[in-house]
């Protein structure tokens, strides 16, 4: 067998963590307990399940804004506290859901407010690793919308030219904010662009965590050799751009077609694990309950943490700097 039960269960839990965390946010938002805009990744959790287990202690990850599966590398309590603007959370609570980061300890790179700009920032991190002769690989995640930004060209050209240890991941979920991919891009697959930079690019069906993991393993291995790679994860976003988005831009015909092409990865994986005799239905329910409890506890703890006050958001130590300021 290519994967152990432990590895397969880990992948399952990552998918459930992403899905259930999004659901918890929806529940809490409806209660009026959360403020801000939240971006869900419903139906694309297999991407995180395939990627996250491969990230080693020397590697750096820049998730994108529908990446709650990346919580598997965070302390969930600190993440939720950060999201709830609590002073004890990550980034002293000023990151919100979108901009949480911990470069020094978790190697969790910041997400730029301008989608598609951090192609460049993360390529710079890969350059730094190379110059400092450090062993890690940078994983830069974007959506298909981010892939239409000009920074892609500069970043991939640079990465190719200098043989940088970086994997570009494009989560092509069929819609960029509110624009269907076919209205923003004239290529059938975005991975084809990599060839223009002498970078290897592949597309992988994103509803099977095993398929994603196999592609990511190959891409990370390639990047460690100094051959940057682009992996396009083909999937479909079964939710709005933000929580509360009515999805007026999505037609029933397209939704039905895309849903058939990209079925829910969680029950699909559950069925496979049961058919292969790896997990029973009861075991799977137990893992989901465990994650649900973990999330509930994190929210409960975070709600009790001190709120961020205005004066805590100011100061030079809140600005990233190599030489001055504090750790964010």
């Amino acid at each position: 067998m290519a994967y152990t039960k432990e590895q397969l269960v880990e992948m399952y839990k990552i998918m459930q963590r992403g899905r259930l965390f999004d659901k918890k946010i929806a529940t809490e938002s409806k209660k009026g307990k959360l403020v801000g805009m939240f971006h869900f990744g419903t139906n694309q959790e297999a991407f995180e399940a395939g990627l996250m287990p491969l990230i080693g202690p020397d590697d750096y990850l820049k998730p994108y804004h529908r990446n709650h599966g990346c919580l598997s590398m965070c302390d969930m309590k600190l993440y939720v506290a950060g999201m709830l603007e609590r002073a004890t959370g990550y980034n002293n609570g000023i990151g919100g859901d979108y901009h949480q980061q911990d470069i020094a300890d978790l190697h969790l790179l910041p997400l730029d407010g301008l989608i598609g700009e951090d192609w460049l920032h993360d390529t710079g991190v890969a350059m730094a690793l190379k110059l400092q002769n450090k062993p890690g690989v940078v994983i830069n995640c974007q959506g298909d919308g981010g892939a239409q930004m000009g920074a892609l060209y500069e970043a991939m050209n640079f990465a190719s030219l200098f043989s940088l240890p970086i994997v570009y991941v494009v989560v092509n979920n069929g819609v960029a904010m509110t624009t269907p991919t076919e209205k923003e891009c004239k290529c059938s697959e975005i991975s084809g662009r990599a060839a223009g930079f002498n970078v290897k690019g592949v597309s992988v069906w994103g509803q099977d965590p095993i398929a994603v993991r196999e592609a990511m393993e190959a891409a990370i291995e390639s990047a460690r050799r100094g051959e940057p790679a682009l992996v396009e994860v083909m999937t479909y976003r079964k939710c709005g751009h933000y929580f509360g988005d009515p999805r007026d831009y999505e037609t029933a015909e397209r939704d039905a077609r895309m849903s058939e092409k990209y079925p829910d990865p969680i029950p699909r994986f559950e069925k496979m694990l049961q058919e292969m005799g790896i997990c029973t239905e009861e075991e799977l329910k137990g893992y989901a309950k465990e994650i649900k409890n973990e999330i509930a506890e994190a929210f409960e703890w975070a709600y009790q943490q001190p709120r961020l006050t205005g004066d805590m958001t100011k100061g030079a130590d809140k600005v990233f700097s190599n030489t001055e300021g504090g750790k964010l």
Partner: protein
Amino acid sequence: MGIIGIACNPQSGKDIRRLLTAATTIDDMEKLNILERIMLSAAAVGDQKVYVMPDRLGYGRLLLQKRQTPGYPGDLSQLEVYEMERTETQSDTIFFASEMERIGADVLVVMGGDGTSRAAAKGTRKVPMISMSTGTNNVYPELMEGTVAGLAAAVLAGKRAPLEACAAPAKCIEIWKNGALVDLALIDLVFCRNPFVGSKAIWNYQEIDQVVVTQCSMASIGFSALVGTALQVSRTDEWGAMAEFTGGTPNTLAPVGAGTVQGVHIENACRLPLGKPVTRTMTYQGTLALDGEREIFFQPGDVITCAVTRNGPLRVDVAGTIEYARTHGCFQLRQEATA
């Protein structure tokens, strides 16, 4: 009026094997160029209708746009995008091929790898098929110039050559699981020890248990070439072959994939007469890989039967078709009488 169908797989030549090996990448633009060359060449030879399968990118739609470009010098007037619901999966190729049979198409041009030709074969085994290589392991399809494929397609669409002179049934491997016919392969069937379908490709050759082939030669790549290290079977031979692979000390070099030649341990390689079933009761969890792609999961106790037969698609001999047409004057131009 004759009908040519063209199915171009936008996803062929883009899978994970580009990362694992030095496999060829064929991008959208190149496929579009090939498609255009087929159309232009066919139009120069005869009048016919050309249906292109709709796809996510819209190769046919892009060519229609090109046709409308002021000053475009080519003749794309025969082009029509076939109206059908698309799923953007392999099912589209299967359905399109079956539709070509239903409407009486004279020839089907398939652009892709072994897997794409296999999908088309699942849709029709009656419409003569020209398989063009734009994939990864291309044993069944041929690497050919689009212009040449267009010439042969137009000859068939214009009924300028008898079908029996141009095409013959290909071999295939029919596969049954627990008594039910589940699928077919055109080139190779691999019993793979990896139980996950995953990204479909196989690159850990230690996972290969047994390979059954319709044809094999070391002068190719992929799993048929593994058997090809022991014997050669041509596409016209009235038999297939099979061999087993173990973790024993490698006893031969094999061109297992694009740019990958490595040692393997091969045993019990033998010819397999057409129609002779091979039945195994599986003792481990694994997958059946068809034409290079893991597709079908099996459990211990599952009974897998396969047989090499002549029930494959009608394969067009492109060079032979053109030569027949040439020697029968099909390309000769009439001399206009001068006043």
